[in-house]
């Protein structure tokens, strides 16, 4: 058996984006030993790409705001599929977590009276997103990174985890390899926090980086945890569409938050006609009213005018853009136009500096002079590991999950800005949950040798197969399947076809091979990542097939209506022997005092 190095911690955190770092900081502050593993260099995780802001009802700009409204917005945005308790904790705790970041050195943009400035975003009733221009994620990850560094957390960079190890029914460690030289490593741990992010690399057009191969989803699934709500995949309405090399790269919702206007090729401001009846009254009725709102927002003044229709929820805006393009009213490269050029160029450069540079340098477009071309891009998965709301523990004892890899918080559709707040609220809770667990379970974790041998054999196999399949070619096949059959609009026959193709691809993946050495060999790494991607792809397709309605980010061509009955159950995916099983489990029912919050305002289901 190949050699491997061994480390032991009370708590091992897998993933060093916002959730992983916050979890590690919390666990470490509770006096347990903490190891932190990340697939990239520290500070490069997906959080760094978050742009628009972190949602927290600080009420610095709109004093009417409070956690109750944030809670209702989140549940309405999630089409009431959310775990209400997670949404409640999130809305209640986000303000403290943001203030905490500031005390740790984050420097947010300011209001005129020197408080944290907040901007408007889709589906949020009030101006709620604390931000730093359009690089809020960078500010957050750097702040957490520096805080963590000074707290004695040991970081293992460019290290990928391939297996969770168990002692009986509880986790006892994790096995993986270092990308740099391919050496194997065993982490013994009493508790493990998964904070591995999402699954975007199953799709060809995505705002996600190479890291997003659903590692945590697959590790948890393999370890016996359930994945819930996997049918809910968020397509961000505004990704770049041109030139081809940048297709899918994110254009922050902050552009619309700052007054960006969506138009089709006929010059029509089409979002007015796509507002759902239930929330139509929250949005401006005319271009004039929308303009009054934007002008007031720019001057930092109050107004009775309602917000522009572009600030509808992401699922709705993405669908609307798709339909406009499909109807032949798209831009030259198959998107629509997003225009902020009517505003003062200096203000645009100040509020959206990285968008200005991104378009100028990558697309030869000056956004202060001309509109951008944008279209939907796979951005986020609402589904993930089923966890307890308060502790973030999964159904596998000792295994915790926070951030995008967890499920339940965002239900059927996530509101922009609710991800960064999710990371810090539930990152902290997962770190605390794991530390508490580790303190209670004092026995050293025990490791079964057979499990290590199986893990090593799996990693060695691609080198030993001659004339096997090229991993990149298999990934392209998966992209083709997912974009053709499991895209933004779904239908029974497509999904069934997609599932059978994924089944066939699964067999091909078993024949994947690579040559060369283990020294920084991305092809070898991809061989292993493919397995995670196919698990997530299959879970998405099967969950999508089972939900015979349209709700939030899940749109069915054959079931276009929302079916109130189907709000009552979440879709749960789990492993049963070699096959993937699906079951419907009851959606947690909200207590009466929270239900009352919805009564006085608009009906549920925005």
């Amino acid at each position, binding site marked *: 058996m190949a050699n491997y190095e061994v480390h032991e911690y009370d708590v091992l955190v897998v993933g060093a984006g916002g959730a992983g770092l916050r979890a590690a900081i919390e666990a470490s502050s509770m006096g347990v030993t903490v190891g932190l593993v990340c697939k990239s*260099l520290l500070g490069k995780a997906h959080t*760094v790409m978050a742009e628009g802001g972190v949602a927290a009802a600080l009420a610095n700009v709109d004093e009417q705001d409070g956690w109750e409204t944030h809670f209702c917005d989140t549940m309405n945005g999630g089409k009431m599929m959310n775990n209400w308790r997670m949404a409640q904790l999130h809305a209640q705790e986000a303000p403290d977590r943001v203030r905490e970041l500031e005390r740790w050195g984050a420097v947010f943009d300011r209001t005129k009276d020197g408080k944290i400035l907040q901007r408007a975003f889709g589906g949020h009733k009030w101006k709620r997103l604390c931000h*730093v221009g359009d690089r809020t*994620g960078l500010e957050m990850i750097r702040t957490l990174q520096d805080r963590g560094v000074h707290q004695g957390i040991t970081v293992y960079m460019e290290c990928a985890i391939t297996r969770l190890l168990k002692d009986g029914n509880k986790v006892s460690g994790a096995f993986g390899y270092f990308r740099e030289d391919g050496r194997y490593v065993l982490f013994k741990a009493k508790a493990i926090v998964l904070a591995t992010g999402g699954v975007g690399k199953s799709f060809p057009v995505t705002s996600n980086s190479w890291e997003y191969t659903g590692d945590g989803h697959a590790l948890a699934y393999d370890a016996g945890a359930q994945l819930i709500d996997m049918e809910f995949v968020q397509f961000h309405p505004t990704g770049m569409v041109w030139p081809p*090399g940048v297709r899918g790269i994110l254009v922050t919702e902050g552009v619309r938050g700052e007054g960006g206007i969506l138009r089709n090729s006929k010059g029509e401001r089409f979002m007015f006609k796509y507002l759902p009846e239930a929330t139509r009254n929250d949005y401006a009725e005319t271009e004039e009213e929308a303009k009054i709102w934007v002008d007031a927002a720019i001057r930092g003044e109050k107004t009775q005018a309602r917000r522009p229709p572009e600030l509808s929820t992401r699922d709705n805006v993405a669908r609307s853009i798709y339909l406009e393009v499909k109807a032949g009213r798209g831009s030259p490269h198959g998107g629509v136009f997003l225009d902020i050029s009517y505003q003062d160029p200096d203000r645009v450069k100040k509020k959206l500096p990285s968008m200005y540079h991104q378009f100028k340098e*990558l697309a030869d477009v000056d956004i202060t002079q001309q509109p951008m071309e944008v279209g939907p891009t796979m951005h986020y998965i609402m589904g993930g590991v089923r966890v307890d709301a308060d502790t973030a523990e999964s159904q596998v004892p000792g295994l915790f999950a926070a951030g995008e890899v967890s499920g339940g918080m965002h239900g059927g559709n996530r509101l922009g800005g609710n991800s960064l707040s999710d990371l810090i609220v539930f990152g902290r809770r997962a770190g605390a949950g794991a530390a508490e667990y580790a303190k209670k379970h004092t026995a050293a974790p025990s490791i079964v040798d057979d499990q290590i041998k199986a893990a090593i054999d799996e990693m060695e196999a691609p080198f030993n197969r001659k004339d096997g399949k090229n991993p990149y070619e298999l990934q392209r096949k998966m992209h083709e399947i997912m974009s053709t059959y499991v895209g933004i609009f779904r239908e029974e026959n497509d999904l069934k076809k997609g599932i059978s193709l994924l089944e066939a691809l699964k067999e091909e993946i078993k024949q994947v091979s690579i040559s060369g050495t283990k020294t920084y060999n991305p092809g070898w790494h991809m061989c292993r990542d493919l397995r995670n991607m196919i698990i997530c792809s299959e879970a998405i397709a099967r969950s999508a097939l089972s939900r015979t309605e349209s709700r939030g980010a899940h749109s069915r061509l054959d079931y276009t209506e929302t079916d109130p009955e189907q709000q009552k159950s979440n879709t749960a995916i789990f492993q049963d022997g070699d096959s993937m099983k699906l079951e419907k489990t009851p959606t947690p029912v909200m207590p009466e005092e929270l239900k009352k919050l919805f009564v006085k305002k608009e009906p549920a289901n925005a």
Partner: protein
Amino acid sequence: MREAVMKVFRGTDSGSGEFKTYKVPIEEGMVVLDAIHYIQGYLDPELAVRWNCKAAKCGSCSAEVNGHPALMCKSRMDHFPEGQEITVEPIKTFPLVKDLVTDVSWNYEVNKKIPAFKPSENADWTFMQEDIERVQEFRKCIECFLCQNVCHVLRDHDRKDVFYGPRFFVRMAGLEMHPLDTENRAGILKDQAGLGYCNITKCCTEVCPEEIHITDNAIIPLKERVVDEFYDPVAKLFKTIFGKKK
């Protein structure tokens, strides 16, 4: 279809490594990182490269393109004359791991030595936008380490033992100029960080993809701070009587 000829450094040792030539079809708007991905995906799955966001936000894909230090995700192929070979090689100041990947872990060790943000205890956390503009400029840094790569003190003289490099002067400037910070880093800047080794040639500023004015806005004011602290007798007397900075 038009093709680009890419000469890419391959190997695990800068001495024995060599440039391999690949032909890559050109698409409109393509960047060098796209060409590298094409090579990985279709020609050579073992080619090692670091990248994440592909949108100049993470600072992972630093390399030297035609000898010029740059982010590959921002280097447009159509900025090079048609027909000209494009060479891509790893940044030079850090030890080679393989192909385009270098070992930049030294930077993370340096970061640990920088005294953390220490806000004043009775702060009310109100401060004005104009008071943080400069700090926000420094906090734009994406840690691509291109400034470290081109700094003479590190690149030519390899003084990693006595010098932190421009990236960490920017980081310390961001802390020092925070309106609520109370820590004093002048001693570290002068001694361990080796600020005096910088002879302000501005190479770092020139390569910064975030256009941070590293020399003018971070390094020179820090140098002034060190001078005030250690070499200005009047200021020293003033401080002895009225207390430390801020």
